[in-house]
């Protein structure tokens, strides 16, 4: 969980043609958040919370 929190903090600090570049930044940032979350749920999934009946 510590890794997840550090990644969340890093993303939070980062957050703080006819497309305005600021909008382009934020759209790209949102997609990057999704990609980072995809990595986190794969690498740091809280398997201990799974219901044994679902194994």
């Amino acid at each position, binding site marked *: *969980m510590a890794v*997840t*929190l550090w990644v*969340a903090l890093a*993303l*939070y600090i980062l*957050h*703080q*043609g*006819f*497309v*305005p570049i*600021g*909008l382009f*930044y*934020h*759209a790209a*940032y*949102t*997609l990057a*958040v*999704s990609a980072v*979350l*995809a990595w*986190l*749920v794969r690498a740091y*999934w*809280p398997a*201990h*919370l*799974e*219901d044994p009946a*679902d194994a």
Partner: protein
Amino acid sequence: MIPAIVIFVYLGIVLFIGIANRGGHGDPDAERYFLAGRALGPAVFLLSLVGTNMTAFSILGASGHAFSNGIVTFGLMASSSALIIPFGLFLIGTRLWSLGRRRGFMTPVQMFRDRWECRHIGTAIFAVQAVLLVPYIIIAVMGGGTTLQTVSNGLVPFWFGGAIVSLVIMGYVFFGGMRGTAWVNAFQTVLFLLFGAIAVSVIANGMGGFRGAVEDLLASPATSPLLSRERVAPLYFFSYSFIPLSSIAFPHIAIFCLTARRLGHFRKTVVLYPICMLLIWLPSVFLGVVANRATDVPAIEAKLEARSTLATAGPSLEPAEAAALGAQASGDDVILRLVEGYAPLWLAALLGAAVMAAVMAADSQILALSTMFTEDIFAFYGGKARFGDRVQVQTGRIFIVLITIAAYAIALRTPQSIFNIATQYAFAGYSALFPLLVGALFWRNSTKWGALAVTLWTAVTVLAVAIIQQTIPAPPPGQTVAVLTIGGTAVVERIASGTTVFGLLPVVPMTIGSALLMGVVSRLTPGARANGRTLDTYFPKTA
């Protein structure tokens, strides 16, 4: 009138979806009725969770804010939520699901009572949560009445529109319970996603493409700040990022986390949530900005003229005149006006349905309030043991009818502006309750007295902000009124859009104050820590 007919058809479809997907026959038990039997599949879980988090603000308010402030709206509201909400689901939602599955919880208060081995402190948390949730339900009834009145050009009166919307929500929540409500929310999310893409392409066609509009905005010193973050100060930008903490603390979101069939359903939800936010918010924000060049739409031209008059003659205007111009310049209906000006009738009708879908997000809140009442009050104080599961569900259904009728009655008698403000307090209040979840799930040494301190602090600070905003009139934009000054430094100030504390939105000191109180009071009351068996349940030793 055609858009109004389309909305009535849409309401009929929603009612059918909600009742047809109630799941099973015969009288449901409490878990099946209030939590869909903890058996929602991954697609409905994702789409319904996104839809539950959307309000009318996501479509109308976002474009209105962008119309006045520019592209910074997306960073301020959408990308911050796209970061914080999925992380909340990943870190807290999964733990709530696991505890709910193992311990049988159906509400956050049940979990708090078990975690901190308390009784009436749980009731205090229930009371604060319930009071903060009610304005949402009332504003949904008002939004439904207003939308039907607007799209029918006044043919459907406010009282009748509000009554129809109330009956439809009450109908599918009453019969469909959580499963029916989740299916309706999933359907509505699909509608949101479709509307954004269609609206952008149709309006682009109507305006002859966006490049010319954006280049015009860039060329004018008056409008070029709309293409940057210039209209929002960094402290305000920082403050606003505390608002999404409220999402997982809202009871209807926390309760919804318990409905997934498997923990694995959170995987796709966490990953796809930011993309759903992008698809819904990006069109709203972008259309709000380019509306500043849609001067061939008379209603938008009138807004721009009102804004210009306010900017040039603002200080010399009478307060009433300035307020009237401010209301006229408001962009909350700008996307409706764009569609009216550039889109065919069928798209206007689709927009009406999408707006209706957004304002009807109160279905989850009504069901959550009913779940909380029947579990945290009725069952906790002996009702379930005495009368059984069936009576508990019937009590929940009666509560749904009563809360909807009460919301409708209040909506008819009270100005909407009061509840618009109240929903602002609700966001800040739930952000301030966020440390309850963190303390319960991540800190062994947290105590029930720390939880009570957080709850009372939230109630007192929400009340204080409400009193300040009700008793001190808002100054004109750009000016401030000092409310509390210490040693020559203005601590609390009244500004045009609300209240600030050291230049920050109240949500920041409220949330930080809550976290500090949880820490300090828990440290001062070590004797009230939960016993070892309880702590082992919440903090199992993992290999």
